[in-house]
C-alpha cells in the first residue's frame, strides 16, 4: 500500500515536471514569468480577497440569522455566486455573436 502511494506521488511529480519543462521550452511561450504571475495572482485573489469576503459573510450570518434562514441563505448565495462568476465574462464582455 505504501509502495503504491509512493509510486503515485512519484508519477504525479513526473507529470508535473513534464508540464514545467514543456512550459519553459515552448517557443510560443516567450515570458514564463508572466504565466507565473498569473498563476500566483489567482491564488492571491482567492485567498486574500474572495475567501475573506465569503468567510466574513459566513461570520455575519452566524451572528445575525437563525439556522433555518442561514440554510436558505447559504444555498441561495452559493448558487447565485457560482452563476455570477461563470457569467462574469459575458456580463462584462458580452456574448460572442452579439457584441
Amino acid at each position, binding site marked *: 500500500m505504501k509502495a503504491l*502511494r*509512493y*509510486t*503515485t*506521488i512519484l*508519477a*504525479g*511529480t*513526473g*507529470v*508535473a*515536471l*513534464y*508540464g*514545467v519543462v*514543456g*512550459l519553459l521550452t*515552448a517557443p*510560443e*511561450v516567450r*515570458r514564463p514569468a*508572466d*504565466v507565473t504571475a*498569473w*498563476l*500566483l495572482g*489567482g*491564488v492571491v*485573489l*482567492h*485567498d486574500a480577497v474572495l*475567501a475573506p469576503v*465569503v*468567510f466574513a459573510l459566513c461570520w455575519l*450570518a*452566524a451572528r445575525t*440569522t*437563525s*439556522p*433555518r*434562514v*442561514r*440554510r436558505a441563505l*447559504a*444555498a441561495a448565495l*452559493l*448558487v447565485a*455566486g*457560482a*452563476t455570477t*462568476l*461563470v*457569467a462574469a*465574462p*459575458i456580463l462584462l*464582455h458580452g*456574448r*460572442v*455573436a*452579439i457584441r
Partner: protein
Amino acid sequence: MRKPPLPSFRSRLHDERTATLIGTALGVAFATAFLTGLVSHVLQHPPSWLAHHLPTRPSWGYRLTQGLHVSSGIAAIPLLLAKLWTVYPKLFEWPPLKSVAHALERLSILVLFAGAVFELVTGLLNAAQWYVWGDQFPFVQTHYWVAWITVGALVVHVGVKAPAIARGFRGPGTELVEAYQADVEARRQGVSRRAFITTTAAAAGTVTVATVGQSVTSVAPVSVLSPRDVGFGELDVPVNRTAVQAGITPAVTAADWRLEVSGGARELSLSREELTALPQTSVKLPIACVEGWSVDAQWQGVRISELMDMAGVPHHADVRVESMETYGAYAVTILEREYVRDPSALLALRLNGEVLTLDHGYPARIIVPNRPGVLQTKWVRRLAVIA
C-alpha cells in the same frame, strides 16, 4: 516560534468527509477536462507519430469531446470554490512547515491550486473569446502545459491524501463517529454536510445547464449564459472569424477566383462554375469549435477525394490547404490522407441549402468529419499535394 493570532473556523464542515466527497467530484471533472483536452490538442496539432492514426469517425466525435471539455471545466468552477472553502482553514495551520515532507506537500497543493484556478479562468475567458492576458502568453500552449502541471500535482495530492480519502469514503463505522458528530453539530449551526453538498451539486448543475446549450443546441433556449449564442449566424450557423477579421476582401473572392489543385499528375484550375458543374455531394456534418460551441449543418460541394482523383493524386498523399486569409495561424493547414479520402470530406460550396456567404468561406471551404473548427479552412485558394 509563537503562534500568531490566526483566524479560527467554527463550522464543522471543514472536515475530511466533506473534502473527500467534493474533491472526488472535482477530480472527475478535472480528469474529464484533461483527457478531452488531450484529444483536442492531438486533433489540432497532431504529433507526427499520430498524424496518420486520427479517426475520422464518428463525425460528431470532436463535437462531443470538446463540448465535454468546456462543460466539465465550467462545472468544476463551483466544485473548486466549494473545495477551497472546505479546506481554507488549513491555510492557517500552525506551525506552517513541520518537516521537509510537509513543506513539499504544501508546495504541491500550491501548484495544484494555482494551476486549477489558472486553467478554469483562462478556459472560461477563452470560451468567451476575451483575451485579457493580451500578449503576455499564448492561450493554447499555456493552457495545455499548465494542464500537465495541474494534473501532475493532482496525482501527487491523491497519493499524499490517500489515507484521508479512504477515511472520508469509509461507510458509517467507528471512524465516522467523529464525522457524524461533526455533521450533527453542523446541522445545529444551520448547514448540514448534506445541505452543503446538495447545494454545491445544484450550483454545478445550474452553471452547466446555463452554458451547455452552445454544444447541445436543443437546450440553447435555456442556456442564457453560454459564452456563444448559437441561435445567431448567417444560414443558421455561427461564425467565429468573419471575412473582415481574416483580411478577406471581396476582390480576392471575385468572379475570376479559381481553385488550384497542384502537385498531382495533372494541375487543375477550376472556376466556381466549373466546380458546381462537377458531381455534388451533400453531407450532414457538425462544425465544432475549440471554444466548445457546435452546431449541425447540411453541406454541399465536391468530394475532396474526387477532386484528387481528377488531378491524379495518389491515395497515400497528404494535402496542404491554402486559404486566402491574410491574418491568422491557420491560413495554411494540413489535411492528412485519412481526411482527404473520407467520403464525407468536402470542398463545400453551399451551406444549409444556400450558397456560402463570405463569412462562411465563399467561394469554397473545407468541411471534414471529426475535426476542430479552426482546421475547417475557409476561403480556399489551393489544394497542394505534399510530396
